[in-house]
């Protein structure tokens, strides 16, 4: 069990994080520079928060009111740095041995051997880190952390230092290692695909402020906030305007909603995924609205159309994705007038 509640004033924003993790792989998801790495550094004890409380299992790591601030050495928090932070003058075996906590040399070399086997580093024992590939370096760093027997694992963007064609394999290996680890793991990332595949739950950080933790499924399929929806990959947003008679207008696109489910009281905007927008030549219903095709971009697997709603406001542009092999995909061309239509149940209402 990990409980984090910290506040720290940073030069450009205030870090204000509050979450709890129970035996799970939890992602801290947010755009670059939103305070994700700073949060990890506070938990590890490298940076001291201004105030708050951090509890790991039954140990208080930090409590500003009781003046508790354990040094990193006593926190038992494993930290996998973005660039792995291997000691460049040590061999692979020496690097791993540096993480061993006991003093018994025989036990230490047994434990090092065990980790070398487990992380498939045989034959590299006497190499220095700069002779290893990125993936091997990551396995050494992970072995060095696991031999230390931490109670919590912090992973800071573990795949950014790697070539993309290596990532897939490494991600599966890391997933296996995390399963074996069996304690709480915090995974910092700005990559939603990684998070979706690896994590049980997600805490979104928006400009230093943490939002409520959610299951990964809930965040990606039913996001509650604008920041979460944006991070889940949604590209189309509109403000909501409530009209007389209980009707609702999606202001940016000039659509007045007909029927559909009741809209939550606290909803301020709506998000629609690029794949949820249907287009046709003719008006198909009350809610379909006229647009002009502004641009057409051909991606590897899909065609992207940029639509400008005729009655839209604030220069709103909708992004629509169509499967490449869909029949009409070839026929949509810039300059054409079309109708777009969004099913009510595809609209994500956001706080």
């Amino acid at each position, binding site marked *: 069990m990990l409980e984090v509640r910290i506040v720290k004033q940073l030069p450009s924003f205030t870090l204000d994080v509050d979450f709890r993790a129970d035996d799970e792989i939890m992602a801290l998801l947010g755009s670059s520079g939103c305070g994700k790495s700073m949060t990890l550094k506070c938990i590890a004890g490298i940076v001291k928060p201004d105030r708050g409380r951090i509890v790991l299992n039954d140990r208080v790591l930090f409590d500003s009111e009781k003046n508790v601030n354990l040094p*990193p050495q006593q926190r038992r928090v494993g930290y996998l740095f973005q660039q792995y*932070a291997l*000691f460049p003058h040590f061999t692979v075996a020496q690097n791993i041995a540096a993480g061993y906590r006991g003093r018994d040399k025989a036990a230490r070399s047994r434990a090092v051997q065990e980790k070398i086997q487990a992380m498939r580093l045989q034959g590299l024992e006497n190499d220095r880190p700069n002779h290893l590939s990125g993936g091997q370096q990551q396995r050494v760093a992970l072995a060095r952390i696991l031999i230390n027997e931490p109670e919590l694992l912090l992973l800071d963007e573990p795949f950014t230092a790697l070539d993309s064609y290596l990532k897939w394999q490494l991600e599966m290996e890391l997933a296996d290692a995390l399963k074996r680890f069996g304690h709480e793991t915090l995974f910092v990332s700005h990559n939603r695909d990684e998070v979706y595949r690896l994590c049980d739950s997600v805490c979104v950080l928006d400009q230093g402020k943490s939002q409520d933790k959610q299951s990964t499924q809930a965040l990606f399929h039913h996001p509650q906030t604008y920041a979460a929806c944006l991070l889940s990959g949604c590209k189309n947003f509109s403000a909501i305007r409530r009209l007389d008679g209980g009707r609702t207008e999606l202001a940016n696109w000039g659509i007045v909603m007909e029927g559909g489910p009741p809209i939550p009281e606290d909803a301020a905007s709506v998000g629609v995924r690029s794949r949820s927008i249907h287009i046709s030549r003719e008006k198909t219903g009350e809610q379909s609205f006229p647009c002009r095709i502004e641009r057409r971009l051909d991606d590897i697997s899909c065609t992207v159309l940029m639509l400008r709603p005729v009655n839209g406001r604030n220069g709103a542009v909708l992004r629509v994705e169509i499967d490449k092999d869909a029949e009409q995909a070839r026929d949509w061309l810039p300059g054409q007038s079309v109708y777009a239509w969004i099913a009510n149940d595809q609209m994500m209402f956001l706080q």
Partner: protein
Amino acid sequence: MDWYPLYNSLRIAAISTVVIFFAGIAAAYYIAKIPRLLKGVLDVILTLPLVLPPTVVGYLLLRLLGPKRVVGAWLYQIFGTKMVMTWWSAIFATVVVAFPLMYRTARGAFEAFDETLAYSGRTLGLSNSWIFWRIRLPVCRQGLTAGAVLAFARALGEYGATSMIASYTPRKTATISTTVYQLWRTNEDAKAMEWVLINIAISAVVLLCINMLEKQERQWVRQ
């Protein structure tokens, strides 16, 4: 030929290099951590001897350590010996003059050090002193060695401050540099030339060492 100046120069340079090596590392390490304003002031004071004429340094040292000056008189009372005009008086001069070379090189090496190495060491439970001696110093060792070699070369060639605080006494305080000056002054041109060649040879070897260190460092850079 009397080899005393070579022997004296080498021991003065060697002893002052040891002193400068540790003092320079300590200064570079601790000054990096203090508030900016104080850091700027200390930085200027510690680097000043690099740009001051050695005679100015010699003058200040005599003002400080001369037998009738406050510190010099106090030390005379304690140790019963004068701080000037002995062979080891030159060490004061060489330490002050060569210190900035070590200090600045060490500071550059520490600033280039990847701090996440220290962070990861701490989260792994390694003590701060272990991290300093086993990680920070070894990782920075090329820069630190280069600083020490430069300081040694500078100490070996020191003339101005040395001649003021230790003077020239044959077989007592004579160093290579003061000997060259003395021989030239007394028109012993051939002998002066011998010492000049010896000095050039030593300096060339030192520079060769620095070049080799730099080459090694380049091979060492992390991918």
